[in-house]
């Protein structure tokens, strides 16, 4: 019977969210996905009724800035995490003596275990200001003013914002991608690699042409799973992103908000809404988040199922 608990919890989650969000879905309409103003309205004033649903006068919800911020920050996290994880997995399996590799693997396990609120604290107080003072201005001043690269130009802010969020998010998904990739590399048989070396291939060529192709599907699966984690990460991003509601970052350093961060930062405001409409709207936001994350995770599982299992941070597989 206990095995049914996750199943029941999953069904209840979907049911409760959909049930609670339904009035908000009907009132907010498509504007919720494409609109870019998030206004709780006057919670102490008159109550309006739209289609039989009570909500504060003047309330209007558009979540596009949060959705865009989620996609952007997760994309940055993936772009950083994947090459770093693959490189580190190579170093751990091929290059280092076993005792040193064991110690470094423990460090990755610890990184997986550090609570996100602590990474958020570090990102907001230590890493963010450091990057904003010493690194971002140099990058911003040397980027050419052409499409794509111009996104890296402009004011660099004080450390809170899109790029800092992406960097901290990448640290949170690196343990998943790196430990899975390491385990996959360890499963690649020695003979093809030795054959490549006997043909005079360098380590880089062996890696690029033999080891990585051998486990490519597994790496992609772990990456997509990490993407799911980055999309749903809440507290650290809420501390580092600037947690804005109606702003899409003008450049890569700009402050912004994400779906998950909005869910936690609008908590107090939602409790203050006597009609309960903002809580329903947050439920709608959660529905959007859950749907996206479930699609991403399902894709990851399908890819991974062909190649074996993902690595857990500590003690084997998950």
């Amino acid at each position, binding site marked *: 019977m206990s095995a049914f608990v996750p199943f029941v919890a999953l069904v209840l*989650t979907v049911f409760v969210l959909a049930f609670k969000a339904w009035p908000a879905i009907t009132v907010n309409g498509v504007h919720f996905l494409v609109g870019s103003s998030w206004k709780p309205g006057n919670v102490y004033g008159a109550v309006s009724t739209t289609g039989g649903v009570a909500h504060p006068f003047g309330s209007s919800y558009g979540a596009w800035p949060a959705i865009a911020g989620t996609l952007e920050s997760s994309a940055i996290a993936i772009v950083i995490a994947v090459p770093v994880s693959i490189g580190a997995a190579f170093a751990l399996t091929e290059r280092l003596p076993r005792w040193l590799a064991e110690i470094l693997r423990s460090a990755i396990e610890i990184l997986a275990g550090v609570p996100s609120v602590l990474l958020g604290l570090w990102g907001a107080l230590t890493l963010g200001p450091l990057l904003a003072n010493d690194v971002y201005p140099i990058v911003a001043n040397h980027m050419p003013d052409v499409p794509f690269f111009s996104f890296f130009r402009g004011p660099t802010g004080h450390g809170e914002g899109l790029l800092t969020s992406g960097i901290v998010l990448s640290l949170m998904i690196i343990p998943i991608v790196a430990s899975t990739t390491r385990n996959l590399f360890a499963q690649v048989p020695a003979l093809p690699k030795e054959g490549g070396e006997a043909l005079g291939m360098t380590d880089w060529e062996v890696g690029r042409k033999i080891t990585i192709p051998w486990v490519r599907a597994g790496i992609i699966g772990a990456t997509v799973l990490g993407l799911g984690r980055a999309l749903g990460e809440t507290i650290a991003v809420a501390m580092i992103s600037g947690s804005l509601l109606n702003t899409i970052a003008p450049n890569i350093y700009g402050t912004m908000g994400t779906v998950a961060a909005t869910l936690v930062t609008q908590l107090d405001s939602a409790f203050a809404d006597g009609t309960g409409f903002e809580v329903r709207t947050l439920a709608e936001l959660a529905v959007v988040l859950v749907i996206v994350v479930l699609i991403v995770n399902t894709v990851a599982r399908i890819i991974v199922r062909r190649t074996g299992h993902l690595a857990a941070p500590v003690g084997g597989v998950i």
Partner: protein
Amino acid sequence: MVVGGARVASDGYPSTHRRRIADRVFRAFTLLALLVIVAPVIWVIAGIVARAVPHWRWSVLTTNTVGAGGGLDNAILGSLAIMLGVLIVAGIFGVLGGVYLAELAGFNRNGKQRGAVLRSATEVLAGVPSIALGLVGYLALVVEFHWGFSVLAAVIVLSVIVIPYIARGTEVALRQVPTNYREGAEALGMSTGYSLRKVVVRSAIPGIATSLLIALAISVGETAPMLYTAGWFTGTPKASLFHQPIGYLTYPVWTFWDYPSDQAHYLAFDAALILLVMVLVLLVIARLVVARSQRFAENRRN
């Protein structure tokens, strides 16, 4: 073309010189990547210690929070109480679920293992963002059931978050128990249930214990779902499951870190340090359990 020299480029192969440089760059990159991962770990830990220790007062451990100052006794006791609750609820359902999936699910008529749907549900649940589960806990338990911010709501939501890890960890640990053990138990005439209890589960205990420790580390570090279910309470936790908010360690970090007072900052970093120590202790014990159980295993993991 210079045979035996550096350039054979006219055959369409890259020059040896360039290949050698590419290889050097690659080797440097792998070590740099490792540094990029390991340095933040040390940096985060050292940063929290460096900010918390200069202002450390031992009275933090024994006094309750007052506004944005005072101590953290209420939060520490609250976190421990919630961990105990999670250990009981998630431990029971997670371990039994894992035992079912690994040992009892059996095979259906087509020769496929049953429980595939349940296993998928477990994996899917592990991917649902914890904030969404916290919101569901708020909507269903806190509001709809009229429990208010309460210990039980927090424990149930945290348990739902960690049960997939425990179930999966238990299932994997059980699958690593050699088939010989089960056959031996059966040859001695043990019933399935008896051999499960006395032979199979017992040999899987290190793996199960590890997954429980990881689950505790996850649950003590969660913030977002706690804000929605546990609320916050500055008094010593009360022995009441309903209508009674409770303190926990992630709240002072999340709330006080950007307050405009030094007092609040000190409290945030004290909470961060205590949280860090608790998580590290749990992870180190988990690691030791794994290392100890593998020392005597037949096939050591590389």
